[in-house]
Structure formats: C-alpha cells, structure tokens
C-alpha cells in the first residue's frame, strides 16, 4: 500500500540547523516530516516556488539529462525509514522499459517537483513515523521559525 503525498512546505529547524520537508496526504490525516540539509532544502524550495535559476541547478541538470534521452519519471516513493533515515526509489520509463533507482528522499522530491511526478509514501513508513514526538516539537516552535508554506 502506498499513499500519495504532497509537499506542504519547508520549515527551518533552528535546533538542528536543518530543514524539514513536510509531506501530507490528500485528506491531511498523515504527515511525514523529512529532515534535509540546507542545499537539499533549497533544491526543493526553488521547485516549490517554480523559480528558474539563471544557471541549471543540480536537479535541473538531472531533469535535462533524463529529458534529452526521453526518459520519464513515473513516480517517486518514500519506501523505508531506518534509524531516522528515510530511503526512496525513483521509478522511470525509458525505451519501453521500467527502471527503479535508489535515491535519497530529498533528491527524489526535488526531481518529482520538477517533473510534475507524483510522490508516494509506503504505509510502513507512515506507520513507523511516530507523530507524537513531532507534534511536541512543533508546539515548541515560534512563529518566526516557520519558513514559506504553500498554503
């Protein structure tokens, strides 16, 4: 079982000097927070706001690499969670074959947003992710800690 998720926003985590990509499912019943580094967050942020950088950023290069050979991203899936580390897979088609490629969730999400491909999370990942801890953490956040949200 997999659930389609949408990127709801990026939050700066001042305690860890990192960013949190917040994924939510359609009816907002499940949330998946993924901690990423600064450059990974900026790769996702640029895509969320549809900003075109003057020179191609790493994920723009990734996309143009796939585009010139007519390879298409079908979907990306957050597949596993182990010791607070998430794992993802990118599904693509190329010349009538399907390929599945291991990736970090940050790369998968940055690429999915640029390719308008859907993002899924496996049920086990959503189950494993205990939201209690996060909710407590969110309560301690001040309004100014929040970055840009898309809604």
């Amino acid at each position, binding site marked *: 079982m997999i659930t389609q998720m949408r990127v709801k926003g990026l939050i700066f985590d001042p305690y860890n000097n990192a960013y949190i990509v917040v994924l939510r499912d359609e009816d907002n019943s499940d949330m998946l927070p993924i901690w990423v*580094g*600064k*450059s990974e967050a900026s790769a996702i942020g640029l895509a969320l706001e549809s900003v075109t950088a003057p*020179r*191609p*950023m*790493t*994920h723009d*290069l*990734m996309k*143009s*690499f*796939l585009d*010139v*050979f007519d*390879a298409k991203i079908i979907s990306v899936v957050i597949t596993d969670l182990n010791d607070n*580390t998430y*794992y993802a897979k*990118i599904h*693509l088609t*190329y*010349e009538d074959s399907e*390929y599945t*490629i*291991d*990736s*970090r969730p940050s*790369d998968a999400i940055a690429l999915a947003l640029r390719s308008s491909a859907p993002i899924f999370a496996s049920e086990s990942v959503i189950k494993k992710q205990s939201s209690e801890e996060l909710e407590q953490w969110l309560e301690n956040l001040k309004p100014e800690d929040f970055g840009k949200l898309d809604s």
Partner: protein
Amino acid sequence: MTSSHAPAADLVELKVKQVLEDSNTDTRIVVLKNDDGSETLPIWVGAAEGNAIRLAMEHVVTPRPMSHDLIRSFAEHLDVKIQRVVVTDVKSSTYYAAIHVASTSKGVDRTLDARPSDAIALALRSHCPIYVTRDVLNRRTASNLDAWVTKLETKNIET
C-alpha cells in the same frame, strides 16, 4: 584521436588538484591544473558543491547515494556514457560548463548545460576528462592569480 567524439584542439585538459576552503565566505575553491602545472583555473563554488567534489576526489562511498551518484546511476541504467565535460565560458567571473553524453543504444550524443561544479562532480565519478577552452583560460583574471592561490594554499596548511 580518431574518434569523432574527440575534443577540438583548442581544449586544455585539466585535473582537480584540490578543494580549498574560503572560510571568510563559506565557499570552496576548486583548483584545476593542467598536466605540467603551467595553467591553473580556480573556480569558486558553494560549500555543498565543493563537498560533492571532495567526496569524489577522496573516493568516499556514502551510505546513501548523493545527487551526483544518482545522475551516475541514471546514466548506468539508461546505458548512457558521460564522455567529457568542458568549461566553456566565463562571464562576470561566472563559469559555464557543458557535459557531453552519448547513448550507446540510441547512437546519439547530446550536450547538457551545467554549472562547472556539477560537471566536475560528475566527471570525477564517471572517470571522464575535464577540459577548459583556451579562450576561457585566456580570459580568466590571471594577473595575480597564481600568487594568490599559493598564498591561500600556505594559509590552508598552517591552520
């Protein structure tokens, strides 16, 4: 050079010598040199880009694939060869690069625009050559550059 993919004669092959830290600005300087060390091309890149290059130079295998490992992995799955990367232009101290890729099964080759940091990070992981055009070498702000790099290297060793 009999291959039709052979680079033009006005290209100079460079190797990544080191990645220096510019602690004042939180940037990295990728120092490229030709074989006999007579030409130096320093390129300023961001911290994350510099680290991507350093990981490849030191052959560090990370537990999860980094962004450039992912591009490598796409290339392997698609049976695409990364042939060479070329630093093609410099405008207002900003460098531009091109990545030459070829699909063996489709028999086509393509050129992708890239930032030099991505091109170099990918070249090191693909064991393909890195070139700069003679034109770019001539146009870099060369006057006191070598002295500056030497100074920085010394400083880097001391600290």
